[in-house]
Structures are given as C-alpha cells and as structure tokens.
C-alpha cells in the first residue's frame, strides 16, 4: 500500500542551522498521528515541507505517492492549518465559504455545526477575532474540508479546554465516519493522547521515536513503595529513573509488566502506575542524549 506520507532522509538547513536532519518515516493511510517534540524540534518545518510550503535541502517527501512540491493533484487532497495561520481580510463566513470551493468532500453541514459549537461570530472579520477564535476558524476549515491528508500544526493555540475537547470529540467522530490521514502537532500530549494511533517524536531536528501509540502505552511503569520492596522488584530490570525520600522510593521501570509482575508488586505492597504518553515523550525528547524509551520497539529510530 502506498504510504499516505513518506519522508526519506529529509534535511532542512537554514543558514548553517539544521532544522531537520535525515528524518525518515512512513505513515499509512487512515491514521491519526501525533507529531511531538520540544519547541524548535523541527515539527513545523516538517509539516511545511510535507504541505509543499517549504522546500527540503535534501531528501524526499511524497504524499499519496507523489511530491507535494510538484504534483497539483496531491496538493488538492491536502489541507494544512497552522497555529499562526494567516487569513485574508474577510469575515468568518466568507473565509469558510472560500475554503469550501477548494475541497470536493467539503461538508457544509459539519462546518455549520462547528461554527455553532465554537460560537464563532460569522459576520465578524477574522482579524478582529481573539486568538482562540482564530484557531477555531482553522479547526472548522481543517475538519470540514475532509481532505485526504489533514495537517494540523498546534491548531488550538489560545483555545479554552472546553473548545479543545470539542475539537478532539469532533475530530474522532468525523474520522470514524470519514477516515483520512491526520498528522497533528501538539504540546498538549496527554490531552490529545487518546486520539493518536501513532506517535512521531522529533528532537533537535532528528527523529527519535516513531511507533504505534499502543506499543508506547505501558512501555514503562512507575513503581513506588518502601525502599527495600522497590529494590527487590526492580532488581535485574532496566531502571530509567529512581528517587528516594526517607524510607520511600519511586523508580521508573522500562518494559511491559505481566500478570506475575503485578502479583509480585501487590505482594510487596508496591504501587504501580504506567507512564503517560507525555512522560514517555519527555523521556524520549527531554533527556540530553534523547534516547528513546526502551519499551517502545516498533520502528524506533535512534538519534
């Protein structure tokens, strides 16, 4: 099957600064992927190149089997909504209507429902909207377009939690009915974690993790309890981190735990808690060497 997005050896330099360094990954059609990483990791640059807004210094990008920089037919099946999306000097209604002209699968019904749900004033000029409302306009367009490949770069900047939840719910509901490839860049990892079927993590322009989200969940567990019990339990296991306060200790153990492990932990009166996606991404992108979590094995790409 032709990947929806295929990136091979992608490199982008800006006057000596390396924004992307030999990034390689494939995304299969019909999936929601989280593009994660710290500020300056190269997420926006990657999305811009995939959308054909920017050009690579080296490497190749294909979307639905063709280059987005050259193939118009591919571009017509894509939409890219950015955090700092610039809009023409028009009213909300006009902007949404203009966007509808470019997408054959555009849903006027969904657009109308989202405009109402976000409480967007259709008669007001986009430039006069608050930051959150401008983000909502982008979300309305990005979802209603029902484009084959949908790219969101921090689409909910300034949006309140209720509106963000609305975005997650509507995205999932519409995706279930009209599956497409969604690549979503975000810093609100745990909030959006439920959406992701796949996770791609960049760190300093390099791909440090590319794995199925399910493989990542449960890839590491926090074990806490009395020092002696924790030491007994963690003996012989890879431990990422260990902290001790008086007679209590907390350690992060890499690798999935089975029923026997859990029973043993219960017998030792230990508290087990799987690491959240955000904690795992922090581990992947936040450590000096940016080493990927060891429990996540699928298609891992080391830096």
């Amino acid at each position, binding site marked *: 099957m032709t990947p929806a997005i295929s990136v091979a050896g992608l490199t982008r330099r800006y006057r000596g600064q390396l924004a992307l360094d030999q990034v390689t990954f494939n995304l299969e059609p019909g999936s929601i992927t989280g593009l994660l990483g710290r500020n300056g990791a190269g997420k926006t640059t990657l999305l811009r190149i995939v959308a054909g807004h920017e050009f690579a210094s080296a490497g190749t990008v294909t979307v639905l089997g063709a280059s987005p920089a050259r193939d*118009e037919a591919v571009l017509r099946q894509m939409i890219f909504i950015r955090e700092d999306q610039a809009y023409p000097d028009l009213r909300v209604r006009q902007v949404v209507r203009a966007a509808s002209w470019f997408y054959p699968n555009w849903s006027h019904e969904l657009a109308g429902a989202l405009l109402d749900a976000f409480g967007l004033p259709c008669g007001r000029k986009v430039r006069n909207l608050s930051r959150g409302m401008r983000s909502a306009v982008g979300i309305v367009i990005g979802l209603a377009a029902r484009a084959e490949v949908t790219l969101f770069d921090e689409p909910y900047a300034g949006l309140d939690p209720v509106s963000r939840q609305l975005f997650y719910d509507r995205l999932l509901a519409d995706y279930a009915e009209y599956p497409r490839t969604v690549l979503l860049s975000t810093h609100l990892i745990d909030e959006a974690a439920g959406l992701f079927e796949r996770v791609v993590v960049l760190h300093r322009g390099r791909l440090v993790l590319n794995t199925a989200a399910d493989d990542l969940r449960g890839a590491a567990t926090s074990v806490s309890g009395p020092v002696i019990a924790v030491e007994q339990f963690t003996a012989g296991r890879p431990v990422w981190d260990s902290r001790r306060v008086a007679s209590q200790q907390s350690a992060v153990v890499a690798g999935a735990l089975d029923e026997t492990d859990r029973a043993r932990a219960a017998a030792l009166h230990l508290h087990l808690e799987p690491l959240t996606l955000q904690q795992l991404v922090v581990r992947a992108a936040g450590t000096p060497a940016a080493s990927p979590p060891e429990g996540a094995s699928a298609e891992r790409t080391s830096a």
Partner: protein
Amino acid sequence: MSTWIRVARYQLTALPGYLGLVLSWVLVFLASLVRAAASAPPRPGEAIHYFVSIICVFFLLAGAQGPARQLPFALALGVSRRSFYAGTALFAGAIAAVAALGVTVLQLIERATGGWGLNLHYFRVPYLLAGPWYLTWLTSFAGLTLMLAWGMWFATIYRRWNLPGLLAFIAAQALALLAIYWAHHWHGWLVSFVVGTLTIGGLTGLLAALALALLAGGYATMRRITV
C-alpha cells in the same frame, strides 16, 4: 483550469475592500467637475490627465495586494503556487478588462458631452487614448494589466526575498530607467521612435508584451516562494 477559476473567485472576495477607494476616486472626480464648472470662466480644452494616472497607480497597488494578502491561506488550502499565480493573473486580466471598459465609457461620455459641457479632457489623453473607442479599450486594458502585473511582481519579490530583494528590484528598475534616459538624452531616439514610428496599435502591443513579460517574471519568482 477549474482551480484557476476557483483562485480567481477567491481573489474576487477581496474586491469589496477596494470599493472605498473606487468611491473616493468617483467623489474626487465629481468634485473636480463641480469646481471646474464653478470657476469662471472655464478653461476650454484643459487636459486633466491625472485621473487616468491615479487609476494606474491604484492598479499597481491592487496588483501587489493579491500575492501579499491572499497567498498564505490559498497555499493552506492546497492550491499550488502555479495555480495561485495563474488564477490571480486571470482575475487581474478580468478586472483590467472591466476597468478599461469603464475608461472607454467615460471617454465616450466625455466626447458626447463636449468634455462634460466644459470642454475638459479627463479621459482623452493625446496620442495614448485618442483613437476610436475599441483602441481606447485595448490600450487601457493592456496598460492596466501591465500595472497589475507590475504590482504582482513587486509583491512576489517581497514575499520571496523580503526588503533586500525589494530594494534590489527597485534599484534594477531605476538603473533600467537611467539607461533609457541616457540613450534618449544622447541619441534622442525614444520620443521620435514612440511618437513618430510607433502607432497607437503598436504601442498597445508593446504594453501587452511588457505585461506578459512582467507576468512571466512574477511567475518565475513565485515558483520558489515559501510561506
């Protein structure tokens, strides 16, 4: 082709933003007529050509608006640079055609009313807009398309290379003008060539060729623009 038309339609959405300027032009024009009528005695045969010049400047600025304001959102919607430019050029051509029709109609009225009853020449520019109505339309169309294409190229240069690129572009044009001035000053060929040799039909062709060259230049610049 259909994407070009969709882009042209998208550009059309910005048109109401210019209505204020068009209205201002109409009001100033009417005020000029009233003032001329009130002045005693009216100066017969007076040529007031800056109203046509204002239209040209307005089109230059309008041409610069398309790529500057409309491009980022168009690219977000999956429009290619090529389609965006072609659609914008299509829109520019349509707008120039309509505006040229307006100039032609105003010139016809001016002729029919003996210069608005005051023997004034607003839209009868010697040599340039002095022929039959269809030639007035054609020359106006070519000239206004040229101004739009020029403005579009300015905007694409700025989008691609920012201020340094824009300054270099202006400097290159200033050098070209200096070269033309120098050639004219020392050899005196320019005026004799244009007025003596070139018919108004030929000049219209020259303007059209220049407009096409500017559009080609703008397109070449647009191909590697990033947003």
